[in-house]
């Protein structure tokens, strides 16, 4: 859990840290919209390289962002595979029969066992998974001897299927990278202040952006605390013989209750204490608040805004042409 980088702020220096959060939110929004407007892989590749150049300029380590992408990897792989299999338009690139015989089954089981054993011993889980997937393909394709268990079926990859799958994956990559840059370089408090200021005009239609921002920042603040507390409760119940990794399903249900009830009660206790602490420091809901660090625009913000508007305009022009 602790290695998840999405949504984490990591202190550092660099261009993006000095930008105003409002600028960053608006710029990321603009660039995201323009990414959705792009239509060809070539355009997207340019967008991807622009995103990477932005990372380099901001002196954000590519390795960190890649590490953060790890949990999303499965999502990306699934999108890729579904697109490639289900999209059947354009000219077929590969098309050949696949066989499923007794020997195929034996080989598949063998490959599976080898994969699991290696996965236990080695550390390169992703690489091993790809090797396993590749070997499944090779087995289905070439092991054509023996009694057929089911009729040979046709395996085909179509041109537009391949294009679409690459297209979708790159688009997702760019969007995730951009939002990671936003959260990586902006303190949660600054982020909520930015959102608050951006939503301020909505006050006319009765939307209280200050309370909204406060709710967001308090929830963000308490995620690690509650996580910590859940951990402690789990240990306390484990000491009473309710270890989550042992026992039957029926017992586990009871164990979940033994975890949830204290969590809710502690959360309510905390919120009451927090409310008292805030009131005793003279917090009045709806009153105008001042801050130690007011947000300020400078020339960098102007540059960033102009850049993002140019990107948006450019992609609109490309779309129209």
């Amino acid at each position, binding site marked *: 859990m*602790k*290695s998840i980088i999405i949504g*984490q702020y*990591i202190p550092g220096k660099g261009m993006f840290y000095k930008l105003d959060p409002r600028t960053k939110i608006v710029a990321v929004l603009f660039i995201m919209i323009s990414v959705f407007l792009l239509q060809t892989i070539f355009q997207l590749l340019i967008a991807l390289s622009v995103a990477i150049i932005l990372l380099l300029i901001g002196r954000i380590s590519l390795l960190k962002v890649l590490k953060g992408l790890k949990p999303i990897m499965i999502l990306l792989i699934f999108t890729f595979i579904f697109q490639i299999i289900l999209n059947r338009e354009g000219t077929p690139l590969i098309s050949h029969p696949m066989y499923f015989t007794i020997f195929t089954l034996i080989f598949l089981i063998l490959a599976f066992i080898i994969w699991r054993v290696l996965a236990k011993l080695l550390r390169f889980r992703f690489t091993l998974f790809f090797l396993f997937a590749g070997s499944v393909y090779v087995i289905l394709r070439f092991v054509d001897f023996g009694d057929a268990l089911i009729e040979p079926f046709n395996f085909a990859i179509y041109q537009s299927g391949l294009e679409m799958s690459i297209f979708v994956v790159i688009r997702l990559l760019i969007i995730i990278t951009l939002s990671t840059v936003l959260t990586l370089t902006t303190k949660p408090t600054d982020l909520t202040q930015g959102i608050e200021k951006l939503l301020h005009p909505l006050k006319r239609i009765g939307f209280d952006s200050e309370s909204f921002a406060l709710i967001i920042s308090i929830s963000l603040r308490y995620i690690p605390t509650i996580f910590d*507390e859940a951990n*402690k*409760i789990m*240990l*306390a*119940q*484990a*000491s*009473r*013989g*309710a*270890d989550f*990794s*042992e*026992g039957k399903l029926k*017992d586990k249900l009871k164990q979940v*209750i*033994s975890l949830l*009830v*204290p969590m809710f*009660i*502690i959360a309510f*206790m905390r919120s009451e204490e927090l409310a008292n602490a805030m009131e005793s420091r003279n917090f009045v809901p709806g009153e105008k608040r001042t801050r130690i660090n007011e947000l300020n625009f400078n020339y960098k913000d102007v540059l960033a805004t102009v850049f993002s508007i140019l990107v948006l305009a450019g992609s609109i022009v490309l779309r129209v042409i």
Partner: protein
Amino acid sequence: MGIRFNQVSYDYSSFAQGLYTAIKDINLEITEKHEFIALVGHTGSGKSTLAKHMNALIFPSEGNLEIFGEVITAKRNKKIKYNNIRKKVGLVFQFPEYQLFEETVEKDIMFGPMNFKITQEEAKKIAKESLNLVGLNDSYLQRNPYNLSGGEKKRVSIAGILAMDPEILVLDEPTSGLDPAGKRVLMNLFKDINEKTGKTIVIITHDMDLVYQYFNRVLVMNEGRLIYDGDPEKLFREKDLFKNHLDYPNTIKVLKYLNETLNLNLNIYQKTLEAALSEIERVVKE
């Protein structure tokens, strides 16, 4: 054989701060019968982490420990039934709110024993017995644990662990947040359990008066290391306890002050208030 630590270290890892070593190179042996041990040390010295190792709630990063013959290492071993270890070594957490969850005290105390496959009737009987053991009467059985006072909650949570009939009992600051009378009642209770049943009891505490008065073995933690293991008497005869963020018991402090200001010749090592008073009486009569 009870619990034996062999070169145990434990690291917490977090994204922001990296590795943080909570305990380091701990070698320790706790026998299963007739021990009454205090575990002291300032906040963040690794007491609680050490206690969590004792019933295999967390596994050592380095080294290993043996708990009733089962060897606990960094990796979870599928052959070991960890729930059985927790039955043998009961750990009571500092805050009762972390474990109380049922709508009645009786059901809550029954939760522990019921996890070890006994009948409802037996569990009910055990619940009643252990509630009486911590000094609460039967009228508490049907009450809601969340409507009890802090001290009562604490007792119910202790009863919840006692109900599992562990061979070794580990308590994380059982007396914190209690009034002085409540503290003594609980300490006498633990001493009583220790003497009657012979169960080994380990208690984490900050109260040096209690340590001096009740315990015959004390473990001192400082910055993750076990720096003292032995008789409290010898510990308090040392000159410079403050450098380990410890304090002397009140009796020693008061008698020492009297010696210095009135130029008396009192024997300052008195465990209880009564003993201190009679010592003063003796010297004054002379």
